[in-house]
């Protein structure tokens, strides 16, 4: 694009972010500070993820961007267009075709491969921020691997509600050393992070932090022996494709209590429907 460097960021900024990424990969789960730049969209819209993507993207990459699993939401469409325009890279909605996947709040249902990189947009990289507001203190706690506070919070949940009441952004231990925020993905997606074949990069633009999980790294969701971590599966199949093992969105369809449960991963759902899988509400759609 005329007037801009390849992938928008200047080379000096990319070098700074690249150095941060390498250190982040060498210390899995540790938050590396970086000089987050002003981007042409507001904080909270994925500026951290965009800066990470801009720093790794090459002309031969194929980019997929998802927002809550969907390829067709405003945030995903804008970011995909942004890179198609500033870097001229090919884009796709098919998980299997992408080399770089930028995501907000989901991990695709399809298992990622060794040759793929997933970039997470992170609003709040500090897993302890609700428990300890001082960044000076939380840095010290990470330095000492002192995560008792988080265990107490989980214990209090159990004593009060009978279960751990965190359904998204469920804290994980990375490589048995650092407590890490997985970004606000549903706890449903947490097991996918453990021993994932793909490299996972995290960018928080407003908070100016980068962190990473190399492939094949242990990522353990915090729990207790007598209260093991469990994912919550919706007790419905997808209305369109009939999938019973995917993460579902609840869509209100009318004013009379009508609702539809559909796969949050739109590519996964479309692929299943193309392969002939039909859910209970999918028939209606085809008949109309």
């Amino acid at each position, binding site marked *: 694009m005329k007037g801009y*460097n*390849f992938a928008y960021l200047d*080379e*000096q900024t*990319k*070098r*700074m972010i*690249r*150095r*941060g*990424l*390498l*250190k*982040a*990969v*060498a*210390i*899995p789960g*540790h938050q*590396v*500070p970086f000089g987050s730049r002003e981007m042409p969209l507001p904080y909270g819209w994925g500026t951290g993820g965009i800066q990470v993507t801009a*720093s*790794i*993207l*090459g*002309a031969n990459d194929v980019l997929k961007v998802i927002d809550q699993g969907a390829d067709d939401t405003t945030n995903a469409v804008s970011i995909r267009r942004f890179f198609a325009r500033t870097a001229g890279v090919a884009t796709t909605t098919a998980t299997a075709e992408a080399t770089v996947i930028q995501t907000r709040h989901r991990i695709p249902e399809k298992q990622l491969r*060794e040759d793929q990189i997933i970039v997470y947009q992170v609003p709040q990289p500090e897993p302890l921020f609700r428990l300890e507001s001082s960044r000076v203190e939380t*840095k*010290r706690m*990470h*330095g*000492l691997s002192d995560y008792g506070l988080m265990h107490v919070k989980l214990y209090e949940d159990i004593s009060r509600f009978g279960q751990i009441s965190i359904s998204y952004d469920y804290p994980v231990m990375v*490589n048995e*050393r*650092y407590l890490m925020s997985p970004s606000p993905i549903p706890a449903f997606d947490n097991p996918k992070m453990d*021993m994932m*074949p793909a*490299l996972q990069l995290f960018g928080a633009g407003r908070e100016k932090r980068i962190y*990473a*999980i*190399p*492939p*094949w*790294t*242990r990522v353990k969701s915090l729990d207790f022996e007598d209260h093991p971590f469990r994912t919550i599966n919706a007790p419905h199949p997808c209305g369109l494709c009939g999938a019973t093992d995917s993460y579902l969105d609840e869509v209100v369809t009318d004013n009379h209590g009508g609702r539809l449960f559909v796969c949050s991963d739109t590519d996964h759902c479309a692929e299943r429907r193309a392969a002939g899988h039909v859910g209970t509400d999918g028939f209606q759609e085809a008949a109309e």
Partner: protein
Amino acid sequence: MSNDLSPAFADPIADAQSCFRSVLDAMARPGHRHATSGVSAPAPLCDAAAAVLLTLADHETPLWLDPAAADASVWITFHTGAPAAPPAQAMFAMALSLPDLTHLSVGTDETPETSATVILQVASLTTGQRYVLEGPGLREPKVVAIDGLPPDFAAIWQRNHAQYPLGVDLILCAGNQLTALPRSVSIKDA
């Protein structure tokens, strides 16, 4: 000043990006080898070491240059602008033989990312002493052959690895090939 300074990357943006992805993948999958391209290095540096310097070093990164590589100093300074620094203050150390890792910064408990990265030029990444690598990034232990490390390298590395999450990271270069050994990986003689 020499007038025969060789050029940097032929295509600075694309070559730096491709070299970075190689280093990133090598750091994420310790021991995996990648080829670099786009630059012909000044003696005594190999092409991969020169490419890594062009990709990562700039005026913000104090660099310690092995005195044995002093002939490349003008080239490095001209193309990267990296200020010279003693080992303890260096973000990058460019070395032709393994420097004393205890002289380099390993970071602090709260800022382990401030540790030094050593760009080490070795004779070969395909032949020589065999090592077994284990750690994040590797599904199962990986055997690599490296020619040009000291005989007691496994013991030296163990002292570096034992400080995890502190420690020095290594980028190994030979010819146009590179690989990386992050501090998180443990190394044994095979």
